[in-house]
């Protein structure tokens, strides 16, 4: 796997500044003519694009798979379009894939694009998949923050919750409430991305995860929901990576 660190200037109009993104690229894949499947892998709150690379064996685990991994910076944005600027959702769903697909041989086909993340990134992955089902073929949440409405009563973020997700009374229509987004999706006649939702049994976010998985079930939206022993930590998220590769059903090409 080649490691690339991009500093992209001026292409990401929504950011209004250069953006950095890391990409793991399979330069030794068997068929150089085929477009490459891509996984957009999101970090959590307090984190950045280096997290997955430095804190897990991500590179070792994806070595030999014909897949590229894109590691964007999400700051503490929850990967939504912030009320002040249209940024992280548009960036993830449109601008970043469009730019990378224009210079790297990444596939622009829905079935070849996946999005996954931990905690804030788990929420972010589902937020994009449920609001923009035409972009990603599969999405996975690891210990995701599934219940945003409940956060308005808490004081866990450095920024007021309404500055990230918008005013509470507009939450339902904003796309930022996963429950409302899932309801809207179930009413549309569109292909739903393949969904995987994982949570550790020792994770404080277990209840909201169960609640959300139940909501999807009631809406007849298929999801592979799995609880297993684990906390809200990197040991658990490292295991989630193995489950993700199985879930995406991409065959390994090279044994190293």
């Amino acid at each position, binding site marked *: *796997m*080649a*490691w*690339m*660190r*991009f*500093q*992209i*200037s*001026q*292409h990401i109009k929504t950011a209004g500044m250069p953006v950095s993104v890391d990409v793991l*690229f399979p*330069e*030794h894949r068997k068929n*150089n003519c085929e477009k490459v499947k891509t996984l957009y892998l999101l970090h959590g709150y307090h984190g950045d694009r280096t997290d997955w690379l430095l804190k897990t064996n991500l590179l070792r685990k994806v070595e030999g798979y014909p897949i590229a991994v894109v590691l964007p910076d999400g700051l503490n944005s929850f990967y939504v379009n912030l009320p002040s600027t249209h940024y992280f959702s548009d960036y993830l769903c449109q601008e970043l894939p469009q730019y990378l697909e*224009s*210079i*790297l*041989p990444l596939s622009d086909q829905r079935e070849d694009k996946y999005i996954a993340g931990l905690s804030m990134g788990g929420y972010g992955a589902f937020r994009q998949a449920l609001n923009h089902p035409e972009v990603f073929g599969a999405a996975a949440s690891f210990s995701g923050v599934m219940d945003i409405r409940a956060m308005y009563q808490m004081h866990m973020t450095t920024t007021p919750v309404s500055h990230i997700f918008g005013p509470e009374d507009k939450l339902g229509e904003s796309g930022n409430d996963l429950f409302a987004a899932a309801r809207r999706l179930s009413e549309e006649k569109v292909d739903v991305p393949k969904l995987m939702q994982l949570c550790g049994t020792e994770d404080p976010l277990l209840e909201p995860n169960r609640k959300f998985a139940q909501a999807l079930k009631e809406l007849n939206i298929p999801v592979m929901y799995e609880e297993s022993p684990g906390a809200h930590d990197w040991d658990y998220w490292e295991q989630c990576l193995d489950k993700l590769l199985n879930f995406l059903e991409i065959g390994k090409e090279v044994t190293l």
Partner: protein
Amino acid sequence: MSFVELNFYSDTLQMKVDVNVVVPDCEPGKKTKVLWLYHGGYGDHSDWVHNTNVVRMAKERGIAVVMPGVHNSCFVNMVNGPAYGTYVGVELPTVLRSMFTVFSAERTDNYVCGFSNGGYGCIKIGLTYPETFGYIGAFAAGDQEDNEFHNSADGWSGNRIAMFGTGEIKGTEYSLKHCARELLRSKRTLPVVYHACGEFDPWHDKNQLVRNFFEGLEGNPFHYHYKEYTGLGHTNVFRETALNDFLNYHKIGTDSRLR
């Protein structure tokens, strides 16, 4: 435009390598010209980026730039060491073209340039792989064959021996003149050679030996062009100016913007 730091495993060198890449903006469906730019002695893949405005120059002209690091190897296949020549001349273009779909693979869109040891290196690589690179731009370049070698058993000597062995370089693949003669004999396609040097360069005399050789070839088969810089030496100001003038000379991304 993107500035990219790239790290990958080189099958040729059997180790991980670092490369800095500038990817310019490109119209959809179009390909970009590529400048393969080599560092000097004691430098690496960050050398040109840190010591000149190459990134801004590339962005303004809309040209891609690839800057490999070659660990003090002078860009050659070392006698007692890895094959850095094959790495930069064959593997690097192959790998980068498989990654960056906007890179043109036409030889007339590919320029190999370098400063100091990289000046020697770019002439050597350009003469060895003329089907890959249509143009050479050497900034302060001497021929290794013109350096007398006395083994003083120090680090420098050790490095020289690892690269070229203990013997004469004349008549070997490490001699630029030998490479040029061999290429002319082979009847393969020929690169266009551009060579610049500052008047105060400590190796000015060595540069003149290269100049005399190319100017002495009948019919100027390499379309050799030499440019002397009064008032400049073996410096960062020199190499940045020389690169800019080289790009102007070949009208790369200039349009109405000759600077």
